[in-house]
């Protein structure tokens, strides 16, 4: 059984524009089809063309496997990471997540400004 209804997306919630014959708590699958937007569709089409051309120039012999080390090498890496994290937490544990996120955003803003 399926039904098609219009909805408006507001604050992370899809608000249905009409009632639907569902019982309380019933699970449904939602397929989202945006209203046509000519300018946006055109931009997406341009991106597809640009990406396809870009992918065509990439090497075909690409190896995407993750690193695979012997167990003692993983253990060494893990010890090094733990030591770094212990060092970082001596400073960062006094700050909240929000403060740290704001600090990184400031650094990101500066980096972006430099790139312009």
């Amino acid at each position, binding site marked *: 059984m399926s039904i098609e209804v219009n909805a408006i997306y507001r604050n992370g919630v899809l608000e249905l524009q009409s009632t639907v014959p569902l019982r309380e708590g019933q699970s449904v699958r939602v397929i989202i089809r945006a209203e046509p937007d000519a300018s946006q569709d055109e931009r997406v089409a341009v991106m597809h063309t640009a990406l396809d051309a870009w992918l065509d120039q990439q090497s075909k012999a690409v190896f995407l496997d993750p690193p695979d080390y012997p167990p003692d090498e993983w253990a060494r890496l893990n010890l090094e990471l733990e030591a770094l994290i212990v060092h970082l937490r001596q400073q960062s544990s006094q700050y909240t997540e929000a403060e*740290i996120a704001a600090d990184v955003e400031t650094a*990101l803003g500066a*980096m972006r400004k430099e790139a312009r």
Partner: protein
Amino acid sequence: MIQVAVDPALLVRGLLSPMSGNDFIIQALRERRFILFTSKALLGDVARLLEYPGLQRKYNLTDAVRGGLVAQLRARASVVAPAGKLDFCPNPHDNHLLEVAFYSHAEYVVTENDALHDGTALAWFFIERSTRAIRLAEFARILRGEP
């Protein structure tokens, strides 16, 4: 294993965060619960963020610590080398992330950059290319195996 490209800013947040928070990315990487795709350019962005004087001072990011963090990411990631540049975002740093994502056909791009979310042309483009741009909270849910 899921294949992911992560915004350098979120990797830095993860590295700097106390145990309970955003460092789940680093812990999941340590436990090899996802494949991180990155590139020389993206690792360079991580290094540049860590070099920012305000972060260096506040978090005591010495040369050795910064070098060690970038080396850890490089050692644990699949480092790809895309040829040429994409020009989808106004800022080249944002394009570095897209280059890695599309080159490696990553399932997810984890970013809080609004340009890749919120109904933008780029957000729809991602969906059509079978790569999903997700925010940090959604990535956490995926790693926990939640729907």
